[in-house]
């Protein structure tokens, strides 16, 4: 069991998401940075679909009521265990009674906390992810609050060393100097944009607004215009979909997005760059770069290989440390 002492601004239980109920209007949810999520579970030898905590902006603390192993990945929030510094991208043993504290994350937005065995909340509609809109899944269908006691599954695996990713292997997906590049594939209404609006979209930086959350990222910049106003019928959308409401300020739909929408679609952010959007903060800048379907698939392949290399490295390190003991 883990007790929530301070929940931070938004901490939710997430896994890979709810994949089979979009046809009745229940969205994916799931970890916003799937890459960091996968590494957190791998470090503590969990199933790839084990539930973890997604902590937004850090500033959270937890008291462990049993011995376990913990891994932290994603945004570095200068964590401490009983006041002793703990590295991000690292797995470490924890004893009952110890307190893990995260400060405000300086770079990146979301930290993933995995425990060996995973968080043992009930599966709802095939997933343990919290769906805040539908109020299902995770812990009582809501963000964590002070005093919540979270059950964790018994860990039956081998003893784990204190180990983690070398700096060179830690995935860099945080904005550089507050700015990040996001690649997209043009969508149905890209050609309906005025040509100078197409240029503005591609060449100007877009500021991430304060009204940004798991549902979507609102962007602020020079307003874009369509050649003629469009009133579309509702259609299915996916996370990453860049919509253009009448205000002319784009909105990027994210993991908690509605399953259908009706605003014109500029394009869709490629799957590999969704994790970047999971780590941008209000005030950061986004630049868009157009990408072909073929390059998006190449990039996805490279990402898969990169993750496989990280997993391999984790395996090697664990083996080596075992033999030293």
């Amino acid at each position, binding site marked *: 069991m883990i007790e929530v002492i301070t929940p931070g601004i938004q901490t939710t239980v997430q896994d890979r998401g709810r*994949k089979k109920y*979009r*046809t*009745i*209007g*229940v969205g994916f949810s799931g970890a916003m940075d799937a890459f960091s999520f996968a590494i957190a579970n791998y470090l503590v030898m969990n199933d790839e679909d084990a539930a973890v905590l997604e902590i937004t902006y850090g500033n959270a603390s937890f008291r462990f009521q049993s011995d376990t192993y913990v891994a932290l990945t994603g945004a570095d929030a200068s964590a401490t265990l009983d006041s002793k510094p703990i590295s991000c991208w690292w797995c470490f043993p924890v004893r009952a009674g110890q307190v893990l504290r995260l400060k405000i994350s300086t770079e990146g937005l979301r930290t993933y906390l995995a425990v060996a065995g995973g968080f043992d909340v009930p599966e*709802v*509609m095939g997933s343990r992810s919290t769906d805040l*809109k*539908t109020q*299902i899944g995770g812990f009582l269908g809501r963000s964590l609050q002070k005093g919540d006691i979270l059950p964790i599954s018994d860990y039956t695996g081998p003893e784990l060393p204190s180990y983690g990713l070398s700096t060179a292997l830690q995935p860099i997906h945080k904005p550089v100097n507050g700015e990040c590049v996001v690649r997209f*594939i*043009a*969508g*149905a*209404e*890209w*050609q*309906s944009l005025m040509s100078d609006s197409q240029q503005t979209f591609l060449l100007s930086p877009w500021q991430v607004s304060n009204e940004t959350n798991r549902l979507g990222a609102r962007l602020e910049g020079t307003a874009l215009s369509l*050649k*003629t106003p*469009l*009133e*579309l*019928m*509702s*259609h*299915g*959308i*996916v996370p*990453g*979909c860049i919509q253009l*409401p*009448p*205000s002319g300020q784009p909105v990027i739909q994210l993991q908690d997005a*509605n*399953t*259908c*929408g*009706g605003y014109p*679609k500029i394009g*869709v*952010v*490629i*799957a590999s760059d969704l994790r970047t959007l999971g780590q941008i903060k209000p005030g950061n800048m986004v630049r868009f770069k157009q990408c072909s*379907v073929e390059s*998006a*698939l190449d990039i*996805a392949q490279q990402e898969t290989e990169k993750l496989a290399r990280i997993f391999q490295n984790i395996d090697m390190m664990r083996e080596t440390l075992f033999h030293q003991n």
Partner: protein
Amino acid sequence: MKSDNRFLFMKTLPENKPELIISMMGEAAILFDAGVELDVPALGLQKKIWSISKRLEAIKGISEVIIGMNNFLVSFVPADLPHAEVQQKVSEYWQQDELGGALNVKSHIIDVVYGGEYLEDLKQVAEYSQLSIDRVIELHSTSKYTVFTLGSQPGLPYLGGLPSKLDIPRRSSPRARVESGAVIVAGGQASVLSRTSACGWHVIGQTDYDVFNIKNDSSAIFSPGDIVEFRVKGVHL
């Protein structure tokens, strides 16, 4: 509504009317739209889409078919099924006229208190359609609607069958918060909000009808093909 150059990935299926407009939705989904030139969604087209989506869902490599209003979004695993093959399958099926088996249709009657908190919307619909408020309520509550699809929110029904006189565009700026149970219209469509959320449609009334209940065996109360009627429970002007 249709402008030149609107569709980047426009492909025509010459043998077949209506055309399907095809566009990529990222690298792993394609949107097929049959209703681009229509003001209100057509039931005949929708039936064809119900039937095709069932067949598509059975194909290995297709992970999901989200049915919209006279359109459908096919998600697939590119490593198992390249996008060109998805397009080919869809156009093959689209050209066959066969309809799937009959749907198991249920009827629903939804009691509505018209007006109330968002009376301004009801007034706006009346003004836009150049009808009296009474006439708007009468038209809305005497039509038979068909559930075209579910989506956006848990169990939320997209209803076709709104009288064309009540066809009004969405609000230019969505309201940040509208309570669940709001009876809404926009873009030639009608619906009922299942969750308190932001909403860009016009709210003409309120109902207690629960459109999604996680405790039920099938959480969504409506299914595509179901018939829905609205009944006047009260009017608050």
